[in-house]
């Protein structure tokens, strides 16, 4: 059906491209769409309709109507009329049992008429209730369009890009182009988007053109997401100019959905872009000169024009398209029959106002034009061209033409005029309700081709004016969007400390820890690393700890009000363990606070809490107006924890004078400036892992140098997992793992910590109340009776009922048992109480303990 080479065609006849179309091999040319190549190869049926499974063929060829939705390489609901052909693509029909040309389910069209009126499902399948599972099975398989393969892997990658535009023009027709060129004269930052791929090579001076790309909606602040296939552009535009044009409307008459009934624009595209002869004998039906002019164009390429019906002149009593096997065969006009294989019909154009309406514009019926037009545009949004009604002429075909057969108002959802009448008869007396009941305008075209028609039919039935009915609410998105595009790719960067590559080189297993990448362990046996710390010397990279400097005359006042602890009485060079609580009394974060000078404190937080704690500090400082500065030095400083009985000796070898780190000169909970291996270091003598140890904080760039020196000095690197075992042996709590948003200092066994005689601190009010009541639960330690390891989160069972949960559990070589922390009811929290813990679905005995399993007096870490 391909014509001889024509001027302006968009195909390259030198390049053949082959693909599979519904099981047939089809060859087209580069530049073809799947639909144009298949049409040229004689294919006419592209889909089966939603409800009646009627054969459907090309109608708009503009990516609006649902008729050419097919599954392309496993992606359902692709409109093949705008999808370029690619070698080897597999295109399949959807909503079909058997094949596009013979669909088993099309019996619903022939015998099912009494069973498929509007609202049938709602009324019928509700009783008997017991039969619902049976109904559901059938309905689920019959409903919906297209199938997704739940086992298919990633087929594409989607990204989100944030963009700014001074002026964003939506639509690349004449109005959009001239608006874009005008805007470009005033300066750069003008972007034009158009959904038509043919606009990709549009050359406009000073204007960036994105095509094919669809503006999906207009949100406040000039936010316009633009769907460009696998990239979602989130445009922030200072001004949005909508030039969406006007969409050709189908004429409503019986048989108006037959294969071969097309809109003039669709026919023009087949002829002009792809040099295809769309039919041999055509009838043209229209109410405006633009539509009727298609007759001349068709004659030029040798199509016989059987009849031109000008609906302005005649008001037919009968206007029916009749067909065979779903294809149009003739038009019956007041008893006269006109044989044809192509019926070109349009009822004028409706401004494509949806984007404007959902941006906040009012939409009104324009009596002079017979269409709905946008008015009262929101700030920052303009409309130009046909979308405003400009250039349109009044076209008022009958809302629906009489005759025998199904007369479709909405081809997406298979809603007929009969369905509309029935819904109105049943009392759905507002257009919004009628829309929901009949589902008209709710299909893939989102009302582009049926909104006006449904309102006209509704007005006619109710003997109302269109203006009194109004429109249904326009909501984004403008066109269907792939969910993958909205999900996009997570582009949060992984954070790595300055020593990270040493861990990779040492073969460590790397894991995520909040935003950080950290070593889990350096070998297959984390217990070996635990033993090294207990017996000799280990070193762990703790650069991920949050690190803050708090400085100023009011530093003490600020910290005393942020923490339940007291700091005013601290000597320079001393350290205190602190816990942050909220005003609700809940534990938020923990860490250490070292006093460096009278006005300068060095604060550490948990690794994952650093950003939140910084914001928390700064917020309260803004609320209270203290004279104190907070500087986040988390990234600027690296930190390692050197731990084990030999750590003093090892550190002594790396400093100028070993006496600086002697037991007397550098006591437990002392903070001290040292040069370690030549690196200026803040050394904190603290013991998270329960052995003699030093936390060394120093400039990040020196990370590898100092790490290498410590490892060369005999320290065995240990990872997160050995650290978790070590701290659990000490019963040290990890905030966020052993505590949750309900935990407070009393229930977590830290009632010694808050200084309730202070005037004020965040959380004091709540703790005052907590102090007067009995906590329901307490955080306790436990040991298992048998050598079985409960999962974190395992249930604690008391007298057959769930009563608590495990938060941490590990096998400890040093303790010789399986140990853990758990929340249990207060009356079962006494050491020695026996409880049961579910391990692998079996209840296993466990004994409550104080929690400090290893070196409970702390002699080792204080030594």
């Amino acid at each position, binding site marked *: 059906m391909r014509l001889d080479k024509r001027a302006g065609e968009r195909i390259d006849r030198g390049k053949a491209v082959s693909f599979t179309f519904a099981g047939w091999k089809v060859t087209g040319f580069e530049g073809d769409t799947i639909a144009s190549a298949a049409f040229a190869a004689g294919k006419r049926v592209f889909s089966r309709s939603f409800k009646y499974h009627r054969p459907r063929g090309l109608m708009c060829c503009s990516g609006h109507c649902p008729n050419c939705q097919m599954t392309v390489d496993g992606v359902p609901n692709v409109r093949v009329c705008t999808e370029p052909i690619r070698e080897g693509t597999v295109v399949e029909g959807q909503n079909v049992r058997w094949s596009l040309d013979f669909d088993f389910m099309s019996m619903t069209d022939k015998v099912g008429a009494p069973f498929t009126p509007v609202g049938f499902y709602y009324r019928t399948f509700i009783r008997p209730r017991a039969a619902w599972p049976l109904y559901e099975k059938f309905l689920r398989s019959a409903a919906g369009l297209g199938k997704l393969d739940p086992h298919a892997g990633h087929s594409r990658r989607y990204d989100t890009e944030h963009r700014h535009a001074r002026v964003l023009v939506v639509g690349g027709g004449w109005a959009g182009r001239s608006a874009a060129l005008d805007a470009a004269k005033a300066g750069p930052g003008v972007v034009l988007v158009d959904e038509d791929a043919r606009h990709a090579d549009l050359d406009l001076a000073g204007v960036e053109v994105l095509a094919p790309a669809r503006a999906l909606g207009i949100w406040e*602040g000039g*936010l316009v997401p633009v769907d460009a296939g696998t990239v979602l552009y989130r445009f922030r535009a200072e001004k949005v100019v909508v030039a969406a044009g006007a969409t050709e409307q189908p004429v409503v008459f019986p048989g108006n959905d037959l294969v071969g009934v097309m809109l003039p624009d669709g026919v023009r595209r087949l002829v002009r872009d792809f040099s295809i002869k769309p039919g041999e004998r055509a009838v043209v039906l229209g109410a405006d000169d633009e539509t009727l002019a298609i007759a001349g164009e068709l004659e030029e390429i040798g199509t016989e024009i059987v009849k031109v019906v000008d609906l302005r002149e005649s008001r037919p009593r009968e206007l029916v398209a009749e067909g065979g096997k779903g294809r149009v065969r003739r038009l019956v006009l007041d008893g006269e029959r006109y044989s044809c294989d192509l019926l070109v019909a349009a009822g004028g154009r409706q401004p494509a106002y949806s984007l404007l309406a959902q941006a906040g514009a009012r939409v009104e019926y324009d009596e002079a034009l017979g269409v709905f037009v946008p008015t009262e545009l929101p700030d920052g949004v303009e409309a130009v061209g046909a979308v405003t009604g400009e250039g349109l002429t009044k076209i008022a075909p009958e809302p629906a033409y009489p005759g025998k057969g199904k007369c479709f108002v909405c081809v997406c959802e298979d809603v007929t005029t009969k369905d509309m009448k029935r819904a109105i008869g049943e009392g759905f007396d507002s257009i919004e309700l009628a829309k929901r009941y009949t589902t008209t305008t709710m299909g893939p075209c989102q009302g582009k081709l049926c909104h006006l028609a449904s309102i006209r039919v509704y007005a006619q039935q109710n003997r109302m004016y269109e203006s009194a009915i109004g429109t249904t609410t326009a909501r984004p998105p403008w066109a269907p969007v792939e969910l993958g595009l909205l999900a996009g790719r997570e582009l949060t960067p992984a954070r790595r400390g300055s020593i990270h590559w040493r861990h990779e080189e040492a073969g460590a297993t790397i894991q995520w820890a909040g935003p950080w990448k950290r070593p889990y362990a350096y070998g297959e046996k984390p217990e070996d690393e635990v033993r090294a710390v207990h017996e000799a010397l280990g070193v762990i990279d703790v650069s991920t700890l949050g690190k803050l400097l708090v400085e100023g005359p009011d530093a003490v006042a600020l910290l005393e009000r942020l923490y339940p602890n007291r700091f005013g009485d601290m000597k320079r060079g001393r350290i205190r363990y602190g816990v942050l609580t909220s005003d609700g009394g809940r534990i938020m974060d923990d860490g250490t606070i070292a006093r460096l000078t009278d006005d300068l404190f060095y604060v550490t937080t948990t690794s994952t809490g650093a950003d939140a704690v910084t914001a928390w500090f*700064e*917020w309260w400082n803004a*609320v209270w*107006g203290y004279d104190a500065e907070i500087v986040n030095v988390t990234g600027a400083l690296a930190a390692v924890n050197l731990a084990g009985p030999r750590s003093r000796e090892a550190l002594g070898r790396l400093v100028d004078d070993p006496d600086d780190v002697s037991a007397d000169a550098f006591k437990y909970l002392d903070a001290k400036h040292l040069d370690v291996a030549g690196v200026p270091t803040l050394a904190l003598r603290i013991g998270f892992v329960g052995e003699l140890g030093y936390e060394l904080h120093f400039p990040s760039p020196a990370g590898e140098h100092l790490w290498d020196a410590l490892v060369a000095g005999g320290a065995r690197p240990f990872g997160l997992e050995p650290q978790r075992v070590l701290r659990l042996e000490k019963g040290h709590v990890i905030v966020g793992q052993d505590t949750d948003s309900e935990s407070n200092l009393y229930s977590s066994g830290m009632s010694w910590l808050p200084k309730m005689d202070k005037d004020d601190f965040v959380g004091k009010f709540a703790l005052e*109340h907590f102090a007067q009541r009995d906590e329901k639960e307490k955080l306790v330690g436990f040991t298992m009776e048998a050598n079985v390891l409960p999962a974190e989160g395992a249930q604690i069972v008391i007298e057959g009922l769930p009563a608590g949960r495990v938060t941490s559990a590990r096998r400890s070589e040093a303790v010789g048992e399986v140990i853990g922390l758990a929340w249990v009811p207060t009356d079962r929290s006494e050491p020695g109480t026996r409880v049961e813990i579910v391990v692998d679905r079996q209840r296993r005995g466990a004994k409550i303990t104080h929690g400090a399993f290893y070196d409970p007096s702390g002699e080792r870490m204080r030594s």
Partner: protein
Amino acid sequence: MSFLLACPFCGPRPVDEYAYFGEVTQRPTGSPSLRELTDYVYFRDNVAGVQREWWQHRTGCGEWFLAERDTRTNEVLEVILPDPKRPV
């Protein structure tokens, strides 16, 4: 929510750059009753209209400031830097 908010330092930026910290509340003093404390910790006025609220330019300069915003329209009437001499 996709409106623009003007940081007192950086000027108008998409709201995604900011952290919202809720309406400005009055922290009780002395020894509040459980009722008063619960009101302060958990209850908000949630007005349909103009309210004063806390914002931080989280992924920008990091500054905390106050904004007067109409919750119905997201129109921001004023942004205010907290005054250290007059605690909020």
